[in-house]
Structures are given as C-alpha cells and as structure tokens.
C-alpha cells in the first residue's frame, strides 16, 4: 500500500484496533506516515461471514471519506 501511495494511487489499509500501533509505525517506516488506516474491531480472523460483513460496514464509510477528501484536495490543483 505504501508503494501504491508513493506512485499516486489512492490506497488504504484495513487494520484491526489491536494492530493500529503496528500499522502506524509501519506507515512511518515505509515513508507514508499519512497512509489511511481503516480501523475495525479485532479480530478479523475466525469470523463468520455475517460478522465479516459488519466489519466491512465499519471500514467502508472510512474508505469513502478518504476518497472524497483526496478528490477534494486534488480538484483545485487539477483546475489550476
């Protein structure tokens, strides 16, 4: 994801709350400190499909918000 971000592709990482510290630390290590981490409740492993869907419903609005914010940032530059 860090590589994609560096190439200008919108990218985000789904990260469970127990792994947020690792996610934030790794974003810095890979040179993308603002890499969006879409926080969901831990765990993600060992879940039935209904619970996985519930996790996705938490992640999706965060992803949409990130995409909208990125577009809003890009628009003035594009117009200029």
């Amino acid at each position, binding site marked *: 994801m860090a590589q994609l971000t560096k190439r200008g592709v919108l990218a985000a990482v789904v990260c469970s709350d*127990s*792994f947020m*510290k*690792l996610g934030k*630390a*790794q974003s810095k*290590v890979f040179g993308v400190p603002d890499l969006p981490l879409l926080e969901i409740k831990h765990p993600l492993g060992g879940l039935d499909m209904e619970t996985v869907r519930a996790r996705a419903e938490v992640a999706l609005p965060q992803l949409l918000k990130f995409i909208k914010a990125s577009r809003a940032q890009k628009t003035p530059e594009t117009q200029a």
Partner: protein
Amino acid sequence: MSALTTQLKETPGALIECDDDPEAVYELLCAKGWSDGLPVIPPTPERVERMLGFCDRDLDQPVVRIPPRFGAATPVRVAANAVMAGCKPEYFPLVLLALEALAEEQYNLYGTQATTHPCTPMLIFNGPVAREVGLNSGHNVMGNYHRANAAIGRAVRLALVNIGAAIPGTGDMATAGTPAKFTFCVAENEAANPWQPLHVELGYPAEASTVTVVAAEGPHNVNDHESLSAEGILTMIAGTMATTGSNNAYYASQPVLAFGPEHAATVASGGFSKAQVKQWLFDHATIPMSRWSPDNIARRFRRRQAEQYANAPLDTPIHMWAKPDDLIVIVAGGAGKHSQYVPTFGVTRAATRALKRADGTLVKSVQELKRA
C-alpha cells in the same frame, strides 16, 4: 580516548550518560525499552570497542537491516547488543553471521518478527568455530548455563528488539510468545551424529562453520525409554509431531527434529539413513482430517486448500509438513532417552550461512577475524 569513543561522541544520540552503578544502568535501559527485561552489561564505548576486536567489517556500514523498523544493523550497534547480552568478543562473528542468515529473504524476518505466532530464531551452529567458542551441544543443549549459547542467542534477540523494534504490542504481535525468545541457540552434537551433520548434508565442507536459522517454537520433548527398535522410536516421535494446532500442518515450512544421541544411535543401527528417517516420519506423522474441528475442516481444508481437500474423505491423512525433505534433522544433547521436536512458523524457510572472511574464504578459526 579511543577512536570509537570520539566517533560516538560526535554522533547525536549515540551516547547517554548514566550513573556508574549496575542497578541504575538496568533501570535506565528498561525505562528506554532497550532490554529483554533481564539485567545487562552496560555497553560502554570501551566494551563495544573490545567486542569489535573480532570483526573484519566496516564498523558503520549496515550488515543487514532489521524489520519491522528496518533499523541499520551496523557492527557498532550489534556490538552494543552483544555487550549487553554478555558475549565474549570472539562470539561476535557468530552473532553477525546469525543476523545475516535471518535477513535472507526466504526466512521472512518481517513476518516472523511481527506475527502473532510464538516463533523466535532457533540458531543451529555447525563446524569448528562453534566448538572453538564453547557452544554447548551436549547435556541441556536447549537449556541454561552455557555462556556462549545463552549470550549469542540473547545478543541476536536484543538486536531484533533494539535495532529492529520487535517491541511487544507494537512490532512483535505475538499473542503469547515463548520463553525461547530470551535465547534459543544450539550447536549440533556432530560427534554423536551417526549421519552427516546438517551443514555437510546441505553441501558445505565439514570444516565450514555455519549457522542455520529456523523460525521456531520452543522444543517439544519426546520421551521414549522403552522402544528397542528404530521403528519404535520413530513411532513415538511421529506421535509427538502429529498435533492439530501446529502451523506445520498447513504451510510449507520446515520443522526441526533434534534427536538425542541415544535415540539417533538406535535409529541408525536399525539401518535408517537420514533421508529414510525423513520419509518414514513424513509418512507416519499424520492426522486424519476428521480430528480437526468442523469449522477447520470446512474453512481451512475444504475452502482454502480446495484443490487438495475439497472432496477428500474425512479419514484423509494430513501430513505435518509439505515434503519429506522439509524436515530438518540434527543430533543434539547428552545421554538420555529424549529427543526434541521443534515446530516452526508457517511462511518461512530455514537459511544457512557459512562464516567467511571479507575476501570470501571460509573461516576455520575465529582468531582469523581478530583485528590487527
């Protein structure tokens, strides 16, 4: 003042002042998170410089980078950790060698550092330098007491934490970890090995000194005081290997069997070559799929490994590793009717490196690496 001391004084953050008192140093290092929780030898510039007395590398050039931080493991930094761990200077080349092996891509150091699985580097040393520096290969080989085993393994672990940032909950996400994370460092008991030692089996000359690194759980004991035949001992070992909670049942990784010398002698006298041991255990260390929980059968076998198991009957034998030769077989320990099985992490392969001088020639004695 030594050249290193001068250099460190000119490097921001390289030196910290502390009371010259063991407890004060211990408190400071624990507070900084630069510890494994046990007391250490204070890494003063003078001690670090002495540690570097057996190093033929550029002292400030990274030998490897250690994830997850990808910190630069320069000889100076690694030497500071080796001092803290209690290493003698002549151990230092083996610490660097182990870190180089861990950095090989197939080992997957990033994954093994950050995983929830309780793995840690098991360091298996072969060859003359292991004997020269006093690495224990006999009684209590995986236990305490012997300085070289304790300090070399500990130095590597400290480097993984202090340089690589394998900090519990941040960079090391192990659910429970393992006591083997303090140190897990053995020499193979080559004198008691009825087969080829590991490094020779892997194609190195007997006079090479090597380390083989494996992302290992702690050892699981195999007690067998009763079997009188090779097949009897192998049956008991296969029974210990065949456990449903092992990563090795699902991934193409390489577990380790460390025969106790007495078990090895009985198996070899029964006519088994090492290759035959691996094949026999591959065939017999199996569990019928029905022994897994219904969710595991449905999700792990039927869905994730559908190509193999989508329609397989429930009594299908599940092997404990992917190919017979994936099992690493060594001989280690002293007298007694015990062997050790060491399961491993999933996405990893063992890596072996030989100790060499900067010009690429094999090191036969650690004294060859002494700085002039």
